[in-house]
């Protein structure tokens, strides 16, 4: 029977870890040399390398380490708890993964008794992501950096931010389609978590993935941040294909000045509406709105400053390392990762197209025409997508600055994808019952 334990293939594991270290190095290269979202990809890439150091187990829980080490006490306890023979190490891990929290807690206590402690990255992940806190704190800081002025000056651009979320749900359909045709084996929860890549918003993607598909979190976060960095390559061809030269030359009227009071009232209104319509989006959007209110209200500047600097920076470091912990070879080197990467880029493309088409649809009805290029900014990817809209617009009319007009749908896209996240969490939870 002992031999069965040895079947896991140590050599194979180490080869996989070497591959993942290369992946980590590639991420560092993209972050540092190509400036791909470096604030996240530097800690993610570095954390990915750390997570794959053979024998260090930095990304493993004490319980996992005890089982890798075939600790007899822990395995006996698992057999007792699950009333299964559990002949192979993978069977034990699988049984634990599918067990209830209290069974895991009991086994973890036995592992701790046997001297196995959680790895450092595992602890970071537990505190920062599994608890849900890091994405919320990032959203607080992002809210404190966001100016809703352009959106308030032209509220109907919110609809562009709505349309672009079609990328999310089309991708969900793509993922379940893959399952249907037997290409991949995604559950509905996993499909939803993959779809959120189309939200083009890092913290939202991490938040949803941590709730619906923690094992895919590494691949989803890497895809989300990488494609956000690739927005200047992904979007322009789609934008040009779906618009005529005349449309791209549409000049929009200058935005009105928005008063301080409107800016103060807006986050409060968003919070209350979210609370009534999509309570599951309330944690993310609540923190986002609090950050924005702190910025706009003008009486708590020291809190706003800290939220935009020390607090978001500290959180970003640990969020990145925690995401990196999910680049451990056993989780990342899976055919699903390829599926996620393929679906993710489709999600961005569809979201971009939906935003542009929505703008064209609005032009059919509205008197005040919008330049359909700003629809592409509705995917979020703040502020990259807005800059792309501006740049493509300048190609057609060198005097037509769309940047401020594109900021409206751009920040609307953040709200839109957080709403989509809330809906998906609620619906998937309901499916589970």
């Amino acid at each position, binding site marked *: 029977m002992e031999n069965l334990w040895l079947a896991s293939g140590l050599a194979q594991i180490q080869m996989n870890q070497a591959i993942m270290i290369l992946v980590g190095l590639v991420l560092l290269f993209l972050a540092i040399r190509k400036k791909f979202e470096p604030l996240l990809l530097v800690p993610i890439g570095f954390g990915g390398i750390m997570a794959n150091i053979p024998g260090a187990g930095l990304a493993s829980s004490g319980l996992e380490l005890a089982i890798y080490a075939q600790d007899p006490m822990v395995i006996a306890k698992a057999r007792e708890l699950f009333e299964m023979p559990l002949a192979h190490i993978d069977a034990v891990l699988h049984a634990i993964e599918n067990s209830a929290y209290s069974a895991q807690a009991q086994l973890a206590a036995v592992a701790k008794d046997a001297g196995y402690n959680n790895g450092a990255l595992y602890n970071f992940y537990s505190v920062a992501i599994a608890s849900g806190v890091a994405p919320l704190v990032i959203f607080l800081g992002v809210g404190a950096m966001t100016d809703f002025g352009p*959106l*308030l000056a032209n*509220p*109907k651009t*919110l*609809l562009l*931010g*709505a*349309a672009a*979320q*079609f990328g*999310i*749900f*089309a991708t*969900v*359909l793509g*993922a*379940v*389609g893959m*399952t*249907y045709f037997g290409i991949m084996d995604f*559950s*509905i929860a996993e*499909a*939803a978590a993959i*779809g959120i890549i189309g939200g083009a918003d890092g913290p939202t993607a991490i938040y949803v993935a941590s709730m619906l598909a923690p094992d895919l979190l590494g691949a989803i976060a890497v895809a989300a941040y990488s494609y956000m960095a690739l927005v200047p390559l992904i979007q322009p061809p789609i934008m040009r294909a779906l618009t005529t030269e005349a449309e791209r030359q549409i000049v929009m009227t200058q935005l009105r*000045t*928005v*008063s*301080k*009071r*409107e800016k103060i*009232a*807006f986050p409060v*209104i*968003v919070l209350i*509406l*979210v609370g009534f*319509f*999509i309570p599951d989006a309330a944690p993310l959007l609540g923190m986002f709105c609090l950050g924005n209110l702190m910025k706009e209200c003008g009486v708590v500047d020291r809190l706003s400053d800290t939220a935009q600097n020390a607090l978001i920076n500290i959180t970003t470091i640990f969020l990145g390392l925690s995401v990196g912990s999910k680049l451990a070879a056993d989780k990342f080197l899976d055919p699903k990762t390829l599926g996620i990467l393929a679906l993710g880029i489709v999600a961005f493309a569809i979201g971009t197209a939906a935003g542009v088409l929505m703008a064209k649809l609005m032009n059919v009805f509205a008197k005040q025409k919008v330049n359909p290029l700003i629809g592409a900014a509705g995917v979020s990817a703040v502020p990259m997508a807005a800059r792309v809209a501006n740049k493509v617009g300048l190609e057609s009319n060198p005097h037509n600055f769309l940047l401020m007009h594109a900021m409206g749908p751009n920040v*609307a896209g953040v*709200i*839109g994808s957080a*709403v*989509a996240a809330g*809906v*998906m969490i609620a*619906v*998937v939870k309901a*499916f589970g019952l």
Partner: protein
Amino acid sequence: MSSNDILQQGADLLMLGMGSVFVFLSVLVVATTAMSWFINRWLPEAEPEVVTRKPAPSTEINSKTLSIIEQAIAQHRVAKGRAAAE
């Protein structure tokens, strides 16, 4: 769960999701427009939001100020060079 079920769930998610996103953001369009109208109608700010920048300090900066700044920068560099204790 059969393969058809997951397709159905995906379609449900698409409908519910896009529906909720559009309804919510449409409501937000209305609410925001109403709020802006209300505030501008009933609670206009005494002074407009336009940031009135103080006139830029004349046109010249006199040489004294200049040398002050140069020295300040020099001093700042020195200060930065001081190693922070561990």
